[in-house]
């Protein structure tokens, strides 16, 4: 009986329709968004562009659509059509000024 319950729970988990990513922001974008790190739930199949749209909706004052920045997923620069996976680290990277 106990075994059957565990199987049921596992089946539910594999049918989950959301994934969780860790969003990190830096420099001028951290100031604009008001957070340096945040967990965000997105639907399975969501890409980087849809995550940015979500952030633009939840943080209208940050004026994201008008800003120039790149995105890295798991510390690699990516284009915005990259599909997110559960556990991804998504970083918003404004124009760099090191050196």
């Amino acid at each position: 009986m106990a075994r059957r319950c565990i199987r049921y729970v596992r089946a539910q988990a594999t049918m989950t329709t959301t994934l969780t990513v860790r969003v990190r922001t830096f420099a001028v974008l951290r100031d604009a968004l008001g957070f340096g790190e945040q967990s965000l739930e997105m639907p399975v199949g969501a890409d980087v562009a849809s995550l940015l749209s979500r952030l633009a909706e939840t943080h209208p004052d940050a004026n994201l659509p008008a800003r120039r920045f790149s995105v890295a997923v798991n510390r690699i620069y990516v284009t915005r059509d990259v599909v997110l996976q559960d556990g991804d680290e998504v970083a918003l990277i404004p124009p760099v000024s090191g050196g």
Partner: protein
Amino acid sequence: MTPDNRKLFEVVTGPISIDEVTARVSSPDRGGITLFAGTVRGITGDLVTDYLEYEAYAEMAEPVLAQIAAEAQARWPSVSAVSIVHRTGRLEVGDVSIVIAVAAAHRQDTFEACRYIIDRVKQIAPIWKREVGRDGGVWVEGPESSVGDAAPMATE
């Protein structure tokens, strides 16, 4: 973070020793080392900077610095060792913010490779500076940054 001299590519929070970075690339079969040191400029035209605050996405910056060195070594195969160390946190005028050491058996290619590396750092390394002066602080968007473009890792 204390400097770890076994690492060639590092983001540190304390002062950088040029001698110590040089030692990271020194070996008996290398007869030429070109060094670049970036320092905090206090006067830019009419603008006076009191100090700089550097911030890095360190977990990504270190692999990006390694990638930049690999690009340089692909272009100049005679370059046999590269070390890049960048400092973050509050830096005063005159402080060293970055040291690049490029070593080879002979000197010729080390100059060009070193120049290439600092140019690429300013294009793609996820590091930022905030200039603090009389009118407060402002994040600098590097004029050479290629971040914000479609493929910032690509070489020109």
